[in-house]
C-alpha cells in the first residue's frame, strides 16, 4: 500500500485484508525473508546488522534463551543492549509524525480509522493474552516474573504488529520496509546489538467470528515448540478444563463455583439441553421468542431469550439460539430489544431474515 492519501478506498481495504491475513497467519516462518527483513530494519535504523539471528519455536522459547545465564549463547553478555527503540519505536514515531503533518489531525484519525483501527482490537487481545500466558508460565517466582516482564518490553511483535503497520507505507524503500518484511514472514522478535532472536508463527490459531481465541477441543493457540493457550470464546481456560467438557452433567455444572467457568460449561453443554434436563420452565413467550430463567445457587439467575433464526438453514430447518440477557428482564421482547440496546416498546422490526 503506497501512502498516497486515503483516496483509493479499495486499495486501502485490500491492504487491510492482507495485513489481517499476516496477523493471523499460521505455519512455518519464511526464515530467509524474515532474516532479510531483520537485517534491513537494522540498516534502516543506522545500525550494524546483527552478527547472529537465532530462531525460537515460540515467544516462550525465546524468553528461555534470553534468560540464559550471563555466559549463555543469547545471554546479556552475548547479545548486547536492546535496540528495539532504534529499530522499531523511533522509525514508527517518525512515520506517524510525518503522516500526521501531511494529513493533518483529522486526516490521520481518518487514516487510522480505515486501517489500523480495524485490526487493533483483535490483535491487541491476542498479544495481551500471549503476554499473560508467558508471565503465568513462570512458576510463582516474583523475580523471575519481573525478569520476564522486562524482556517483554524488548519484544517487537512481528506479525502481530500488523495493525499499526497497515496504517503506513511499508513498500520497498520505505522506512518501515524491514519491519514489515519480518511481520509478513515471522512471529515476535527481539532485536539486540549483536543478535536477534526471531520466533516461529503459531501452528494453531482458532478464533470465533468476533476474532476471539476459541476452541473447545484443544489449544486455541499453539506454537511448534508446544507453548499453547486454551480459550473458550476469548475466555482463558485451563487445558484440563476442556477435557472435562465432554463428560459434563447438569449436577457438575451446578456445583462449579467459578461463575465464568460455569458459563463456559453451560455454553458447551448447550442451554437447550440444560433447560430440558434441569426441568426449567419458560417464563414468558411472545412474537419475538421465549424467555427462560435458570436459578443458580449463590449467583444471579441465568436469564435467556430463545430466538428462532428467521432464515432457514440449507436443510430447511430453522436454527434456534439462546442469548443471555440481564437478570431483571421480564419479557422475551424486552430481552431481544436489550440485545440491540433498545427498550421493548422501541423494538419493532418491519422485516427480519
Amino acid at each position, binding site marked *: 500500500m503506497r501512502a498516497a492519501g486515503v483516496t483509493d478506498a479499495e486499495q486501502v481495504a485490500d491492504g487491510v485484508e492482507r495485513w489481517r491475513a499476516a496477523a493471523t497467519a499460521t505455519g512455518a516462518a519464511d526464515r530467509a525473508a524474515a532474516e532479510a527483513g531483520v537485517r534491513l530494519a537494522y540498516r534502516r535504523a543506522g545500525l550494524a546488522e546483527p552478527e547472529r539471528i537465532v530462531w525460537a519455536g515460540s515467544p516462550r522459547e525465546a524468553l528461555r534463551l534470553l534468560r540464559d545465564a550471563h555466559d549463555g549463547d543469547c545471554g546479556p553478555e552475548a547479545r548486547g543492549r536492546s535496540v528495539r527503540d532504534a529499530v522499531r519505536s523511533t522509525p514508527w514515531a517518525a512515520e506517524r509524525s510525518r503522516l500526521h503533518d501531511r494529513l493533518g489531525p483529522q486526516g490521520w484519525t481518518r487514516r487510522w480509522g480505515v486501517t489500523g483501527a480495524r485490526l487493533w482490537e483483535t490483535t491487541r487481545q491476542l498479544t495481551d493474552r500471549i503476554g499473560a500466558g508467558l508471565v503465568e508460565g513462570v512458576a510463582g517466582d516474583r523475580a523471575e516474573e519481573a525478569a520476564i516482564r522486562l524482556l517483554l518490553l524488548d519484544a517487537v511483535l512481528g506479525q502481530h504488529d500488523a495493525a499499526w503497520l497497515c496504517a503506513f507505507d511499508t513498500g520497498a524503500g520505505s522506512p518501515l520496509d524491514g519491519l514489515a518484511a519480518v511481520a509478513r514472514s515471522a512471529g515476535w522478535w527481539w532485536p539486540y546489538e549483536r543478535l536477534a532472536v526471531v520466533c516461529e508463527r503459531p501452528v494453531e490459531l482458532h478464533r470465533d467470528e468476533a476474532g476471539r481465541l476459541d476452541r473447545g477441543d484443544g489449544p486455541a493457540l499453539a506454537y511448534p515448540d508446544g507453548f499453547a493457550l486454551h480459550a473458550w470464546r476469548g475466555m482463558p481456560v485451563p487445558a484440563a478444563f476442556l477435557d472435562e467438557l465432554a463428560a459434563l452433567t447438569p449436577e457438575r455444572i451446578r456445583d462449579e463455583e467459578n461463575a465464568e467457568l460455569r458459563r463456559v460449561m453451560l455454553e458447551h453443554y448447550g442451554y437447550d439441553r440444560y433447560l430440558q434436563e434441569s426441568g426449567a420452565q419458560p417464563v414468558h413467550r411472545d412474537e419475538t421468542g421465549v424467555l427462560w430463567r435458570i436459578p443458580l445457587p449463590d449467583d444471579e439467575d441465568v436469564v435467556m431469550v430463545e430466538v428462532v433464526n428467521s*432464515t432457514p438453514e440449507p436443510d430447511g430447518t430453522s436454527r434456534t439460539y439462546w442469548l*443471555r440477557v440481564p437478570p431483571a428482564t421480564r419479557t422475551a421482547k424486552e430481552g431481544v430489544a436489550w440485545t440491540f440496546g433498545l427498550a421493548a416498546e422501541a423494538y419493532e422490526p418491519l422485516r427480519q431474515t
Partner: protein
Amino acid sequence: MYRQGDVLIVPIEESAVPAHATAAGAPEEPRDARGRLVLALGEVTGHAHAVLGPGRLVREAGPFGPMLLHLPDGGRVVHEEHAAIPLPKGWYRVVRQREYVPGSVRVVAD
C-alpha cells in the same frame, strides 16, 4: 427497522443525524475489495452483512459501532447466510447484537 441476523438497521430522521456525519469530508468507512459497505464482518468465515449500491457508512465511537448508514437511493443488505433485505432511501443507525455476560457485555457474531 430491519434485522438481518445479529445486525439491526434502524431508520433515523435526517434531522436526527449527528452533524459530524453529514459534514463535508466526514470520515467514511471504505468499501471492501468487492465494493460493498460492510456493516459487520465475521473475522473467521469472512461472511459479511454488507450493503450494495451508492451510499456511505460513518463509524461512531467504539470498536463495534454503532455506525450511521446513508443510502441516498436505497439499497440492499446482503449476507451469505441470510435473505437479502431491501432498504428504502434514507439514514440508518446500524446496531450489532450484544449478549449479557455478568460483569460485562459481549458482542454476538453469527
